[in-house]
């Protein structure tokens, strides 16, 4: 079974998955390895990471030196096609015109979804992150705890390959022994921050990222991941051998033609296709989940973007993994007599409780780095270190004015020059004029690589003001009603961002950094708008109470037992960790449960 066109659809599948990214890819992998017949629907086109990604191309080989444009919003060489905040023909709306109430929605319309363009930061949620209500009196407890997900974190990390170190941190869990790949050596800026950050209590450690710092162990890992399944072991071993280790060059956001970092196609879909149990239908925009009289999902109605014709795919089980809000949109657009307000929405909670990482950043010029001896610090195509959240005592005492915490991500170093590499250079030299000529060349050498910054990404607990619904008027180019977002920050987020800014400033100043920006009295000017971290989750949250949540702990809709979610939609909150690893772990856990239920005849 291969990548197909609508004309080649089989009469029915065991499971239909909408979306081919982290959640859809993991679900397809887990199911097909165990013999389940699966169809994946993908809204974007097929994409070949081996031949289509631009790894070594220079900015001077791209139009406009590769800067972002409305056509390529993260830059020309970023591994995103037909994707963006604004996609012609695929609008969404915001209910409020106020800047602080805006939600921005990134859509990645290509095979593999957002896993093509990702920093590969793979941090586990910790035990506290699943129980904010119990611990902090806010948000909702998840119906599962860390111990439920931990075995799946191990499995996902072994499958995709994650480097990092076990640091024994509170609420930033270690992996089981032997699971993580070796952490790369830290760069000079990361080491410098590690040393001087101690003065202000910052504990800087190796980060965890889905990049192979050595080849995956194809001899032992397949048997650990697929005990008693020789076929799956062989397929996985072959796939692991097709992935090379990192060659210590090129930005991971460009994609990886050698398979050294994780993307869904290379790691999930390729072995899933090799099982013979997977069809993938690209260029297919899902419109609606179809239902039978008994209240079970029967498949997906879709728009074939290559022909403009509507089609239908049938399956015994439907899994939505279209990205959290796209899955929500599908539910809201699947109305019937039994579900007049959208499918699986008897609780009225579909679309509710959207959260994103709370984020702000700050950078400085570090004079100590001036005139640094020339050396290559490309490394693993992204950060090697981070600042985990360690202020748990203050959390417990309620001293901070916000629940949860945040981690800090580095931007540093002698990265490949871009069009804006010299920004701020006149100020560094103490000139209030525009330097040019020989002096500019000298200054460029002296100051290149001296910028260091931190971006904070923190906990957001759900609130009643951050949700989406169907826009009553607007439809997309295929006539499908679009989403209208409502966004509200609370004092929790404002207080957290004030803390970010103060904390980062302290850290930069501990390094002797000259912070370019004055503290903003208006916290809104510092913080990134809702959705813009592209960590939006929620909208179909899991819970213990069918009246207050959309799914149970298995991401299975309370109202429709053969309907599951495998993206960020069931997240009951955003942790101070990036969501992708957790999406994959929950998808694997969901898929195991789905197969159990299939075997028992419960679906």
């Amino acid at each position, binding site marked *: 079974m291969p990548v197909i066109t609508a004309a080649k659809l089989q009469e029915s599948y065991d499971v239909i998955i909408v979306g081919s990214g982290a959640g859809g890819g993991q679900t397809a992998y887990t199911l097909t390895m165990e013999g389940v017949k699966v169809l994946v629907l993908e809204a974007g086109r097929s994409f070949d990471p081996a031949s289509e990604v631009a790894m070594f191309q*220079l900015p001077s*080989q791209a139009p406009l*030196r590769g800067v972002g444009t409305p056509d390529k919003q993260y830059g020309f060489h970023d591994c995103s096609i037909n994707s963006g905040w604004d996609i012609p023909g695929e609008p969404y709306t915001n209910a409020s015109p106020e800047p602080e109430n805006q939600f921005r929605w990134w859509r990645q319309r290509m095979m593999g979804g957002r896993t093509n363009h990702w920093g590969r930061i793979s941090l586990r949620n910790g035990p506290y992150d699943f129980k904010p209500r119990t611990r902090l009196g806010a948000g909702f407890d998840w119906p599962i705890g860390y111990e439920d997900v931990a075995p799946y974190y191990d499995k996902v990390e072994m499958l995709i390959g994650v480097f990092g170190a076990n640091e024994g941190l509170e609420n930033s869990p270690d992996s089981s022994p032997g699971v993580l790949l070796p952490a790369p050596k830290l*760069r000079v800026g990361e080491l410098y921050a590690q040393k001087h950050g101690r003065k202000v209590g910052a504990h800087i450690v190796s980060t965890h990222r889905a990049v192979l710092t050595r080849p995956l162990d194809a001899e032992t890992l397949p048997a650990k991941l697929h005990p008693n399944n020789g076929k799956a072991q062989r397929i996985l071993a072959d796939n692991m051998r097709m992935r090379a280790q990192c060659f*210590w060059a090129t930005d991971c956001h460009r994609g990886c033609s050698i398979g050294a970092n994780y993307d869904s196609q290379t790691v999930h879909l390729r072995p899933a296709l090799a099982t013979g149990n997977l069809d993938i239908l690209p260029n297919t925009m899902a419109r609606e989940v179809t239902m039978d009289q008994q209240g079970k999902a029967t498949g997906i109605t879709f728009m074939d973007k290559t022909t403009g014709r509507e089609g239908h795919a049938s399956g015994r089980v439907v899994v939505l993994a279209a990205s959290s809000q796209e899955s929500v949109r599908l539910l809201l657009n699947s109305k019937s007599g039994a579900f007049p307000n959208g499918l699986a929405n008897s609780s009225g909670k579909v679309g509710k409780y959207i959260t994103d990482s709370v984020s702000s950043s700050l950078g400085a010029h570090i004079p100590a780095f001036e005139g640094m001896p*020339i050396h290559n610090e490309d490394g*693993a195509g992204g950060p090697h270190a981070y600042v985990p959240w360690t202020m748990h005592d203050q959390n417990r005492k309620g001293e901070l004015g916000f629940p949860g915490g945040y981690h800090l991500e580095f931007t540093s170093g002698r990265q490949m020059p871009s069009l804006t590499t010299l920004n701020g250079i006149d100020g560094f030299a103490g000139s209030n004029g525009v330097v040019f000529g020989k002096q500019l*060349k000298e200054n460029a050498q002296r100051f290149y690589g001296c910028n260091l910054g931190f971006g904070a990404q923190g906990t957001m607990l759900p609130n009643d003001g951050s949700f989406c619904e169907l826009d009553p008027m607007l439809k997309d180019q295929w006539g499908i009603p679009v989403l209208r977002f409502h966004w509200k920050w609370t004092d929790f987020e404002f207080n957290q961002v004030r803390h970010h800014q103060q904390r980062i400033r302290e850290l930069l100043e501990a390094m002797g950094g000259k912070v370019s920006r004055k503290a903003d009295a208006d916290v809104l000017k510092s913080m990134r708008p809702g959705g813009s971290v592209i960590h939006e989750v929620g909208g179909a949250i899991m819970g213990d109470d069918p009246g207050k949540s959309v799914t149970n702990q298995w991401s299975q809709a309370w109202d429709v037992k053969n309907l599951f979610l495998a993206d960020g939609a069931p997240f009951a909150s955003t942790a101070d960790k990036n969501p992708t690893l957790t999406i994959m772990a929950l998808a694997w856990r969901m898929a195991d449960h789905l197969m159990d239920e299939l075997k028992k005849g419960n679906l």
Partner: protein
Amino acid sequence: MNTPDHLPRMDRRLAIQWMLSAAATLRVSNLGLPAADGDTAIKGKGYGPDPSMVKFYQPGDVWPLTLTEPQRHTARALCDVIMPADETSPSASMVGVPDFIDEWISAPYPAQAGDRRIVLEGLKWMDDEARRRFRAGFADLTHEQQTAICDDISNPVKAKPEHKKAAPFFKRYRDLTAGGYYTTPEGMKAIGYVGNMPAGTFEGPPMEALRHVGLV
């Protein structure tokens, strides 16, 4: 309207300043874009949401360029005053930066549209200023004469009134030239970027880098 009738009531020095700045304002706002004969319109289309990412692109490959030969002459000269050649690295025009700037101001995207006007007006201002002061186009001046003009417009705070309007152009043109330069292979070498090379291992920073920041 100010009329000559007002002048006697003004301080003489102030009046002269006023006349100079009014003249400068007039000059700058009148110059610039070729007349409204359609020459200023962007003709090309963008590369769309799904271009080949692996292809090597040259300015002019995706949308047509703008600059006339005389304009390119001035653009090249100004690029090289900003980024001159030296013993170890080439000048901006030797690595195609003027072509990049032409591509930039010809782009069919909103972020570049503002720079189109700034650059076209600015290049004309440079030539007019060169002719006014030295009786030759900017490209035909000596290096000292070119530098003298650039010095006058390189400080937005200290620039004389008649130079103030050209200062934002110079800042923008300098940024485009420097950014365009350091994104080329030669520019990367000049700034000290030695990455983008596959390697078998990553050894971390060398001892001399650690020593430089006091880590050993």
